[in-house]
């Protein structure tokens, strides 16, 4: 894979790293926009599949970035994308963690926290909406998405069981 792609991955994900307010899931829509719509590196359905793979694998949610990098530019792509997604925010966290105590309870800090919550929520709901549209291409698929969400919200069943059940429904050819 050419260097240009690696540089593009590094650029995209390091910007994404600093925009990930409230965690990795909040940048799902932007990742989707950049990877599928802007660069055309894969289809929306492929992106949704990689996202599902990352969810079915142990570890932090952010691993979808590694898979995207890998799909676009092999092992080098995976390393570059993962490093780019983590490095800027890690350096920032490392720097701030040393001086954080000084600002505890400051009014502007509370406002910053409270102010970012609604934006974070809007981003995660948008992420759910976009990934659903990418993943689901049949009534049954939408039903699986809805049932999974409902089950997660109302029971303590481990998500892997839901993946297994959904996989079986898919295997039966109904999705």
């Amino acid at each position, binding site marked *: 894979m050419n260097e240009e792609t690696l540089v593009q991955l590094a650029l995209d994900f390091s910007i994404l*790293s*600093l*925009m*990930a*307010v*409230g*965690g990795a899931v909040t*940048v799902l829509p932007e990742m989707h926009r950049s990877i599928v719509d802007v660069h055309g590196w894969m289809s929306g359905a492929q992106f*949704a*599949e990689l*996202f599902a*793979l990352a969810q*079915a*694998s*142990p*570890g*932090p949610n*952010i*691993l979808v970035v590694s898979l995207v990098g890998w799909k676009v530019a092999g*092992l080098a792509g995976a390393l570059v994308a993962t490093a780019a997604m983590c490095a800027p*925010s*890690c350096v920032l*966290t*490392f720097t701030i*963690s040393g001086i954080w105590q000084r600002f505890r309870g400051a*009014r502007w*800090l509370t406002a*910053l*926290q*409270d*102010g*970012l*919550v*609604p*934006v*974070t*929520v*809007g*981003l*995660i*709901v*948008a992420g*759910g909406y976009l*990934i*659903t549209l*990418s993943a*689901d*291409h*049949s009534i049954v698929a*939408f039903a*699986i998405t809805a049932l*999974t969400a409902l089950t997660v*919200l109302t029971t303590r069943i481990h*998500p*892997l069981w839901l*993946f297994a059940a*959904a996989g079986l429904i*898919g*295997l039966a050819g109904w*999705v």
Partner: protein
Amino acid sequence: MSDALPAKAPAPSELFLRFTQVAVSGFGGVMPFARRMLVEERHWLSAEEFADVLSLCQLLPGPNIVNVAVCVGARYHGVRGALAAFAGLMTAPFFLVLALGALYTEYSHLPAVSAAFHGVSAAAAGLVVAMGIKMAMSRRLRSAMALFAIVTFFGIALMRLPLVILLLALAPLSVAAAFWRAK
């Protein structure tokens, strides 16, 4: 953050190992496992300290759990500790997820595999939907502040605006509103 350290600071190798354990125990989010390890098993942080570290890590950009690892590692061994905890958290899951990706690519041409995966993708989307609904119903959003969540959703999901534009336009307003409401 030098207050209330345990008697013996964990070595970087131990930070690496413990965060590896945490990372491979959780599917689709490992924060609960990190909390259990840090607070209940190793006593590296008290419950209050963990809540404190977590609120900082949620405020700062980037994956929250990665930020937590960096904070905890930095607390004991500076850059070395942060790198050890980070590497512990990411190395094993990184290769596991790539192995899974390779397996999937190898067999995705089989109709059975791709059919099953249509189901799994739909379920994975459901996890994000659930997360969104859960957060949208949180008490902190039962105020005029919900307006900012709605505008964010419209801008990103329906108008497909670039995130940077939305953040630059909306985050300052939202933070200012929170500041004003706290008066």
